[in-house]
């Protein structure tokens, strides 16, 4: 079954054709990052304007790359949420129109389900599994006992981890998007700053607003005292705390739920510090770890096409009344 999938939930216009949830036929990702960088972050109205300008060009390029027409496609899939409402709408209206005019089934896909199924493009998911989802908008631990069945067992109470990285980067005068550079600096610096381990308790909840404030206050105080901030050391101290709490709670959940498969998903899955620490811990504890290749970590339609196949087998079909949702719980 060949599915044409569309993803437009934030600042990437992406279209992909995926066969049977695991074989990538072609993918096109158009990133708006350079435009938003001038504003220090994603501007929703500008994102929406760029999505509509590019949507048909991206669909066309994807079909051309695959040497296919809509006649070769069995179904159309789309990210309906969560995300920026104006951005989501472009993808949703485009997908609904394609499905209507070509008489194809329409499959609605949750953005986070997409991030999880990015791993299915690397290696067939094995159940039960735990998924650690870390991105600019999400920090969740999800238990899956079978395909397209999700049970959220924990997550952030405030900022998402990627959001926290971007804010810390801004304080350290690291240009947007700051996450990858904080990660790079963390590897070059030493853990010399005294920062708290955020929400270090027995729950599966995370909280990153405290450590964000701690970094802001520390930078401010050092400045007041006329001390130079050692950016690389602060990046290292910050990243070590974040990675420690993420991995600590994830390993605890694996033990408690007696699960041997861990997958990591979302933009922060590209973080080297997190990947390296998880590799060590999973080796020690005999856990099968799957992390997506870097190109599948950030938003893309390939992961939506992969998830869509399993959503479809699970009976998820929408009609032309499908609406975009800014917030929506993964169920």
């Amino acid at each position, binding site marked *: 079954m060949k599915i044409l999938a569309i993803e437009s939930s934030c600042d990437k216009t992406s279209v992909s054709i995926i066969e049977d949830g695991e074989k990538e036929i072609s993918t096109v990702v158009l990133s708006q990052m350079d435009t938003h960088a001038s*504003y220090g972050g994603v501007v929703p109205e500008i994102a929406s304007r760029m999505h*509509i300008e590019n949507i*048909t060009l991206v*669909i066309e390029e994807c079909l051309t790359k695959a040497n296919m027409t809509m006649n070769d496609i069995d179904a159309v899939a789309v990210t309906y949420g969560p995300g920026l409402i104006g951005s989501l709408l*472009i993808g949703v*209206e*485009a997908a*609904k129109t394609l499905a209507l005019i070509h008489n194809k089934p329409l499959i609605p896909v949750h953005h986070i389900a997409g991030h999880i199924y990015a791993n299915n493009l690397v290696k067939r998911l094995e159940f039960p599994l735990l998924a650690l989802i870390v991105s600019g908008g999400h920090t969740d631990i999800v238990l899956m006992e079978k395909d397209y069945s999700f049970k959220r067992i924990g997550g952030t109470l405030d900022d998402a981890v990627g959001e926290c990285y971007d804010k810390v980067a801004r304080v350290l005068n690291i240009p947007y998007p700051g996450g990858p550079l904080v990660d790079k600096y963390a590897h070059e610096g030493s853990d010399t700053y005294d920062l708290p381990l955020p929400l270090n308790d027995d729950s599966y909840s995370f909280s990153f607003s405290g450590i964000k404030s701690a970094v802001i206050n520390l930078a401010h105080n050092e400045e007041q005292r006329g001390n130079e901030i050692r950016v690389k050391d602060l990046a290292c101290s910050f990243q070590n705390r974040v990675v420690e709490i993420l991995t600590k709670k994830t390993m605890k959940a694996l033990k408690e739920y007696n699960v041997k498969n861990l997958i990591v998903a979302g933009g922060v899955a590209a973080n080297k510090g997190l990947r390296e620490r998880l590799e060590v811990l999973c080796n020690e504890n005999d856990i099968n770890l799957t992390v997506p290749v870097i190109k599948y970590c950030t938003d893309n339609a390939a992961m939506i096409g992969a998830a869509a196949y399993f959503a479809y087998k699970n009976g998820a079909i929408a*009609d032309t009344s499908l609406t975009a949702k800014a917030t929506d719980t993964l169920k």
Partner: protein
Amino acid sequence: MKYLFIDTCTSHLVVSIIIDNKIVSYYNEKIDKGMSNYILPEIEKQLKDNNLEASCIDAIFVSNGPGSFTGIRVGLTISKVYAWSLKIKVIPISSLEVLASTNTNGNNLALMDARRGYVFLGGYDKDLNPLINDSYVLFNKDEYKDYNFISYDEFENKIEPNIDILKVINKHKNDSGINPHALNPNYLKLTEAEEKLNDKRS
């Protein structure tokens, strides 16, 4: 010829199918929220009611702004994908011209409230020839004394729109149309972020 007409730029959603210069189905309703919940189901319904395949449409007439940013994009995304995918002609029309198609005894000034005293406006004669180009301006009603004000929004002595889509279509049916990839909104206004960035740079 079979035409699809779409206008999502104002508070009213308009969808219509026109066959050989006759309106065979017509929807024009005030939508408070969620234009996107209604438009494609309505297009689907009208195609079905008239026993038409989507590919039977010869041309799409769509208003491309100004108006609600999100609203404009809903109608245009559908038109863009529809026209590109089925290689159908698509003709963009000003949403102000559509408002100005309301039949009156003189020249019309189509108006949309754009907040903080600003409006989107366009002046047209009874044959829809433009007299005042569509623009985003601080509104001073005394400058437009010779015009009938046409608007869904609150303006003194305004006339409620009663659009004449056949007049609009007849005016534009011989237009050459536009490459669907290049069919984009005519916002007439930068985003706030762009305005601020420009202020900072100048």
